């Protein structure tokens, strides 16, 4: 009887603590979502409201403002709130840049990882360490020379430049992840195929790559997230062209009219793909966030 009561108390304690944890991590996310469906007056109201339809009447204005565009105009014909239609262009840019750099990083990085995993490379561990060390570099340290390099080569404000940069940023990650996966695929598969008359390239294409595709997809998602979220470089290098969402979100505060509702809507649109991706790659998360250093 006492044992049972104790388990009940334990159970309550467990769920209560868990509830606190979930509340702490989920509250900001819910708050931003609920702010995105509030009117301008409601969003700056000092008494917080949480439940749409019950506490306040939700609106999709913020979403239409950022996705469709248009600004409110006062009687004098002056815009009284920023025209946020630029958000759309930035979203398209983010998709192009994250997509292209990810595709490039994953394809190049996978080949490199295969080579390192399968062939005898002189000073292999030094090579892997070199690749890893580029990840440890504080980005601001290379910001100056990258800025000068891109300025001299006229790569600023271009898709090509920023895609190359993000590809390079993601390459070490892809190489480390994919090498880990290739090490787990038995060499015997390819060897059998090659004994059967395939060339090495055919064996890679027909045997190894199909085996590696799930791992490549997970790696791709992580790379895409890095490129999607990056702020420092793109903010410094790109202005009018090929600029992405994060600098834009940062720039719509401070314009003289509090646009938190719009900002919240922009953030929600920007964050939804990340949330979906997180669910998709949940089984690879451990490897992904530790650079393949920790495997399950």
């Amino acid at each position, binding site marked *: 009887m006492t044992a049972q009561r104790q388990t009940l108390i334990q159970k309550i304690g467990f769920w209560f603590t868990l509830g606190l944890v979930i509340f702490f991590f989920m509250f900001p996310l819910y708050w931003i979502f609920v702010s995105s469906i509030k009117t301008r007056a409601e969003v700056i109201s000092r008494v917080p409201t949480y439940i749409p339809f019950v506490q306040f009447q939700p609106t999709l204005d913020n979403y239409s403002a950022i996705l469709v565009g248009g600004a409110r105009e006062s009687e004098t014909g002056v815009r009284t709130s920023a025209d946020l239609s630029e958000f759309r262009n930035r979203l398209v840019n983010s998709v192009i840049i994250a997509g292209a750099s990810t595709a490039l990083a994953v394809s190049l990085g996978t080949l490199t990882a295969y080579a390192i995993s399968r062939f005898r490379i002189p000073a292999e561990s030094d090579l892997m360490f070199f690749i890893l060390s580029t990840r440890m570099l504080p980005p601001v340290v290379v910001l100056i020379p990258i800025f000068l390099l891109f300025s001299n080569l006229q790569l600023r404000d271009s898709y090509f430049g920023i895609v190359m940069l993000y590809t390079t940023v993601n390459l070490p990650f892809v190489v480390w992840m994919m090498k880990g996966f290739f090490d787990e695929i038995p060499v015997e598969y390819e060897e059998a195929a090659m004994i059967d008359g395939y060339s090495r390239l055919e064996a890679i294409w027909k045997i190894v790559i199909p085996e590696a595709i799930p791992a490549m997809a997970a790696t791709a998602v992580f790379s895409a997230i890095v490129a999607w979220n990056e702020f420092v470089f793109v903010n410094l290098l790109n202005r009018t062209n090929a600029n992405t969402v994060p600098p834009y979100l940062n720039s719509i505060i401070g314009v003289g009219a509090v646009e938190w509702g719009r900002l919240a809507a922009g953030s929600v649109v920007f964050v939804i793909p990340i949330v979906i991706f997180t669910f998709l790659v949940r089984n690879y998360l451990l490897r992904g*966030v530790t650079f393949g250093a920790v495997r399950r």
Partner: protein
Amino acid sequence: MADSQVAGRSITELKDPLRPRFSWFTDRWIAISFLTPTMALLVFITVFPLVWSLYLSFTDWSVIRDANTAPTWIGTQNYADLLMNRRTWERFVVTGQFVVPSVTIELVLGFGIAMLLNRKFNGRGVIMTMLLIPMMLSPIVVALFWRFMMQGEGVLNYYVVNLFGSDPVLWLTDRWVAPWSLVLVDVWMWTPFMMLISLAGLSAVPKYLYEAAAVDRASGWFRFRHITLPMVAPLLLIAVIFRTMDAYKLFDQALVLTGGGPGRFTQTASLYLYDLAFGQFRTGEASALGYIMLIVIIALANLFIRALNSIKATE
């Protein structure tokens, strides 16, 4: 399942063996052509810029003043100036005051949550994945969310005033509070990371060790101290290394949340470097600061790796 399929495929397709294509493409050439693009990019976009900025760090060059003149070599003057300057040291102190509490709290909290989650219950998978979302978000978005909540009359202060009856907290403009606000946001974002790695460690502890301890009627603390902790420690140390490196680089979050203010009480080394480089355009000096940061991080990494090796050795 996967094995048999691959094996099956290779057998069926090879019933009629073809003459291998691309066989002229020897392993040696494959290795070279697979490695070259990656290495070229890394050298061109990482190593070359590093060498360039090493050179600049020994000059008094400014990118806006001397755009068309060659840099003047001034030896180690920039390094001497920086190391003699009180400001530089203050920036590293600010960085340390951010990194140490953040990583410590994240470690304790993350490990605690992992202990909590390290059991079977309904909805575990969903809850875990939900808790992992914060660390996947853009630091810019996270900082903007929190800045919104931390305003003078924002939602946090509403509860501070109405639940606790205290004065509103100046989260971002009080010199004593603002550094802790940065820590709070970092804890929100990165505790899930510690949790994830701790969970991996916990689930790897063999069950029989606990069973043996139960037979010996060992206390909960004893089990934790002598079974759980030693088994998980190496993984935790890896997690600490990763987090320390990342926290040390803190830039975007601080830029959006406080911009280094009030005064310079939240200006981390990265923010200072950015200001030197692209606010004041003292390019040479900023490059030197970059190298000082780099040396500090390499030293830190070495310390950690030594600790990791000694933990592994004692096992």
